[in-house]
């Protein structure tokens, strides 16, 4: 028999090295924050793709071969899709290049007419010079598109980094877990499993949801004979990653294109009905099935997260805001649970007592 009641004396010196390393890491992140972005994006992509690699790994295929296989298949698929998309999008963009001045003139004309009517009725509006401001805004559109070009380098850097993150697998995590104090492993892994379960479902769910919405939008817009259907559908798919935005962006952009193409409000009405349909389909069918295991977020919280994301990191901040909110919500839940169980905020839970003995 051994005596385990005597607790070893706490030695706070043991925390000096981890604390120093932690602070050094924070300082490094602060110094190199500009270079970290592709790594964060790659880590997110590796996290999303990891289940695919795990699928093959638990079936006995070595991780490195599974990653190479995934890249070869994904590369071929991507090449085909990009080739087809570039083919269609180039035709559409070429057409847009030719027709943009005409469309821009029509938009300016429309705004000038509207402005003239408004100024006639409300002379005060003349001082705002809305028509001039709008013309200037239209001239800046190509410049705004050009500023997005540097983001294209991410398309090459991110898959490269992701490859090594996927091939490495959970090596770093395993190393950290193997070196954690043994008694804390269970709780740390419990927390990690909880976050993984809800965040993983959310990320994989939202990607599938965005893809389904892209397909529906593409089919619908092609059937209505709208110009630039592929470009608009891609825009809707990408904006669907941000809750509530997809159908809204689709409705606005395609209404503008439809007005310029057909000059009729009936088509716009049909488009609005179509996108309202997509919105309800998303709410009633897609989300309940795809996102059933994911974290549930209140719409007000989503809005706050989106606005805070925009404030902190612009468009990328918006894209990452919801996953980060999921993590924060799960951590808060776990923290409250731990307070209740480990620190006895609530009376100690009693095991189920039964009066009938084992028979």
């Amino acid at each position, binding site marked *: *028999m051994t005596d385990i009641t005597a607790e070893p004396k706490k030695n706070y010196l043991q925390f000096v090295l981890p604390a120093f390393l932690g602070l050094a890491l924070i300082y490094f992140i602060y110094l190199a924050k500009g270079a970290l972005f592709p790594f964060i994006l790659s880590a997110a992509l590796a996290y999303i793709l990891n289940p695919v690699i795990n699928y093959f790994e638990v079936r006995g295929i070595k991780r490195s071969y599974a990653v190479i296989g995934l890249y070869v298949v994904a590369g071929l698929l991507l090449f085909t899709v990009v080739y087809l998309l570039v083919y269609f999008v180039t035709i559409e963009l070429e057409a847009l290049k030719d027709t943009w001045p005409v469309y821009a003139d029509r938009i300016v004309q429309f705004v000038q007419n509207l402005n003239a009517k408004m100024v006639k009725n409300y002379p005060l509006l003349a001082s705002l010079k809305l028509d001039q401001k709008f013309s200037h805004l239209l001239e800046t559109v190509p410049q705004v598109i050009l500023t997005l070009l540097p983001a294209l380098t991410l398309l090459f850097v991110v898959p490269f980094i992701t490859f090594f993150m996927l091939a490495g697998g959970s090596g770093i995590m395993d190393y950290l877990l193997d070196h954690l104090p043994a008694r804390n492993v269970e709780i740390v892994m419990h927390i990690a*499993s909880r976050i993984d379960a809800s965040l993983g479902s959310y990320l994989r769910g939202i990607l599938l949801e965005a893809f389904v919405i892209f397909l529906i939008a593409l089919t619908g817009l092609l059937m209505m004979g709208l110009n630039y259907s592929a470009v608009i559908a891609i825009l809707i798919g990408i904006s669907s990653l941000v809750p509530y935005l997809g159908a809204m962006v689709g409705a606005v952009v395609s209404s503008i294109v439809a007005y310029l193409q057909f000059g009729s409000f009936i088509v716009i009405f049909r488009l609005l009905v179509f996108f309202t349909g997509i919105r309800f389909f998303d709410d009633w069918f897609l989300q309940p099935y795809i996102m059933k295991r994911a974290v549930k977020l209140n719409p007000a919280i989503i809005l706050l997260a989106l606005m805070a994301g925009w404030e902190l990191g612009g468009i990328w901040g918006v894209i990452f805001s919801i996953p980060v909110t999921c993590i924060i919500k799960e951590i808060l839940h776990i923290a409250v649970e731990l307070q209740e169980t480990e620190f006895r905020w609530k009376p100690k839970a009693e095991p189920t007592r039964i009066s009938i003995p084992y028979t």
Partner: protein
Amino acid sequence: MRFSNLLNQIYDEEILAKLGFLKNIRLFEGIRRRQLIHVLESLQERTYLKGETIFAQGDIGRALFIVFSGKIELSRLSPATHKSEVIAEVNPGEIFGEMALLEEMPRTATAIATEETRVFMLFKIKLETLLFSRPELGVNIASQLAKIMSARLRAILEKPEQ
């Protein structure tokens, strides 16, 4: 010959050995090899060094442990003498800490590795996910868990009074 060499290079022997090991675990009895793959996906692994405490009596339990290699000693604090008494030794292929899968209650014993030990952990949340996404598999595990619990309870009752 070359083709089989290539296959051997692609296949991870370690994973295949783990699947073979799980096939003989009582908790997974009756589960086909194809379905065992999903079980393996849900398990976490860790090696404990000799003398390390896996959990202590009174800690909140959140996972079941399966010993892959090595040996674990389970001990319980006697309320009368305030000394810990060894109540069991867990060898490869055996499980312990199963009550954590049913209720998150304080552990009733302390588990210490008596030699370098590799364990698989099945967390309650992972079992719940299995029950939800693969009910047939989940029900099989739950049923085996009930049988093991019943057998352990029977063993306590049939143990001669000391």
